[in-house]
């Protein structure tokens, strides 16, 4: 597996382009010959973390790194930060606005979906400063 590192920018509240970075990552992983099951898991992780930035974050930076045995996705934003990280991982808990819920977001499944589809997840969040989510998926 070729080693690769690529960085993308995710704009907050840009619902028109939301998901495009994840689709690019999906295509890239497929073209690198990553197995379909791993691509599917990485796609879920990428999309949920991309949407977290679009809905709740500030300016976001998305980094994909692929090496011999691991995919790493780092999604960082300079948004308001997460108040209670443990609560944010609880399935069904959401701080989505009514507007977001009307269009099918805010199921409280974003971070739980990432947890289920990754091998390791690290969250660093500071109130008023932003959030960094680092997701690891083993390739083999």
């Amino acid at each position, binding site marked *: 597996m070729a080693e690769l590192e690529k960085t993308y920018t995710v704009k907050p509240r840009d*619902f*028109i382009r*939301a*998901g*495009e970075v*994840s*689709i690019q990552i*999906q295509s890239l992983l497929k073209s690198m010959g990553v197995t379909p099951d791993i691509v*599917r898991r990485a*796609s*879920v992780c*990428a*999309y*949920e973390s991309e*949407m977290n930035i679009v809905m709740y974050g500030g300016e976001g930076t998305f980094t994909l790194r692929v090496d011999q045995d691991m995919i790493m996705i780092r999604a960082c934003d300079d948004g308001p930060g997460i108040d209670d990280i443990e609560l944010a991982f609880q399935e069904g808990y959401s701080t989505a606005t009514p507007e977001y819920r009307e*269009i*099918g*977001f*805010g*199921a*409280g*499944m*974003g971070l*739980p*979906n990432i947890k*289920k589809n990754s091998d390791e997840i690290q969250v660093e969040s500071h109130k008023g400063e932003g959030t960094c989510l680092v997701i690891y998926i083993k390739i083999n």
Partner: protein
Amino acid sequence: MKAGELIEKLQVELSAGATGLDNTVDNAYCGDLLSDVMAHAPQGSVWLTIQGHQNIVAVAVLKEIAAIILVNGRIPDDDTRTKADEEGIPVLLSQDTSYQVAGQLFKHGIGTDCG
């Protein structure tokens, strides 16, 4: 079954994404919450939803969903149609409810081998 066969079998209307009509449909999922679909929709599904905004196309691409049926007479946003055309995800329109469409799919053998 090919996505294109759904048009006649379910009496639905093609709205966008015609280049994906050869996609193979072998399962189905009903859901209006996008993260629920991300969590549970099997690949190769036809997805039944009332959501007509453009974000459904990204979800469909990422979950390798074969086609989307908008139920209850919902119509897609223009941006949704454009994205569906770009990505080759057929968007089909039905006046029926999710339950009714799911029943028709089941009758045609879609998803019947799933637990």
